[in-house]
């Protein structure tokens, strides 16, 4: 059984450099060596723009014969790695993240927590073009407690994937959100 890599750009504006970095020949060869045979790229909500961007990235890969993509290919079993692009979908966590061996995510809180709560190996890529954002702060804080690895530059992605593959990561543990209910009870 090969492994599944899930890439998510969240439910907000398309994080193009992340899509481009994962649809890069060197990166794909790298993950095949690590035993991955399937990659799902959730390219965002801005369909059709994000879909178009995804397809353009795929088109540039066309000469890589051993990579099968869901664009017009039917005999996927002949390939070493199958890449599949999907738009944002509310069932995404259930359908994909749950099955993933590794998640590569943008720095959104929601996507980070979805992966960590399911105890998935996680590499977070920070979107530098977002001004005044807390993504780096959250990623750093989580990386300090050893539950994820983050890349502040997309070019470090493959290196960070190797790092997370070779490290035993700490677990975030279950949410203590029920505490808010207790606090309310104390106040009533």
């Amino acid at each position, binding site marked *: 059984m090969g492994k599944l890599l899930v890439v998510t750009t969240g439910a907000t504006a398309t994080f193009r450099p992340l899509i481009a970095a994962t649809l890069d020949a060197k990166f794909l060869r790298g993950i095949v060596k690590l035993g991955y045979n399937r990659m799902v790229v959730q390219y965002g909500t801005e369909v059709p723009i994000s879909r178009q961007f995804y397809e353009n990235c795929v088109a540039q890969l066309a000469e890589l014969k051993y990579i099968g993509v869901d664009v017009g290919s039917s005999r996927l079993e002949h390939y070493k790695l199958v890449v599949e692009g999907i738009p944002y979908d509310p069932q995404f966590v259930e359908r994909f993240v749950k099955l993933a061996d590794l998640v590569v995510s943008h720095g959104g809180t929601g996507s980070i927590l979805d992966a960590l709560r399911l105890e998935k190996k996680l590499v977070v890529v920070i979107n530098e073009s977002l001004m005044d954002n807390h993504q780096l702060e*959250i990623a750093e804080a989580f990386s300090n407690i050893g539950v994820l690895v983050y890349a502040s530059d997309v070019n470090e992605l493959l290196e960070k994937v190797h790092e997370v593959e070779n490290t035993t990561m700490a677990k975030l543990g279950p*949410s203590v959100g029920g505490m808010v209910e207790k606090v*309310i009870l104390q106040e009533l």
Partner: protein
Amino acid sequence: MDCDTEITVIASVTLLIGLVVVLRLIYCLPCVYYSSTKRTIDEAMRIPKGTKIMILLGSGGHTGEMIRILGQFSNDSLENLEKTYVVSSGDETSLLRIKQLEETLRSGKDTRYIILPRARSVGESSFSALFNTLKSFLYTVRTFVGDFSLIPDVLLLNGPGTAVPLAYLVFFFKLIGLGHTRIVYVESLARVNNLSISGKCILPLADRFIVQWEKLAHDYNRCEYYGVLV
């Protein structure tokens, strides 16, 4: 009555009123009488039926965290609560997400929704932002004055800016004896090293203030830390 007596009377009345206001503030401000010992809550305890809660859904990330927090409540408590959600106009996503959660509850149909004019849009000039914030605040006041039964037992907030006027208004009602709302504020997971501006503004009024990173509980008085809540 000569001029001096008049001044003395006015001064005394002003002082007296001032004293009453200060005493009332001291009586009402949680930061004055705060005690760190809390009553213990049994695992089986549930929020009693009919408890009124007002929940602000700030937008994207704030709404996301709030929904995750509510998702950790016991189903019984969620169904017992009489909920009023406050959402900004145009924030269809928050409305959609919370309605999805409400649909899973038997009590869903009694839930109320207040749609406030948006306080500030991204990229807006500061003048029009000021104007819109004022408009949004006046609308909030009007909504409450039109229906005092809206004043909740618990006000649950997790930012952003819109939370500030709402908290101050509800606290003002408490100050003049309308309602006895307990304000519970949860700081966003994104705040790792410093409290948000909204958080700093609300901290003195909040009966309970929960942070999600330990450092904040060390750095600020009265901040409670239990772990990641979302």
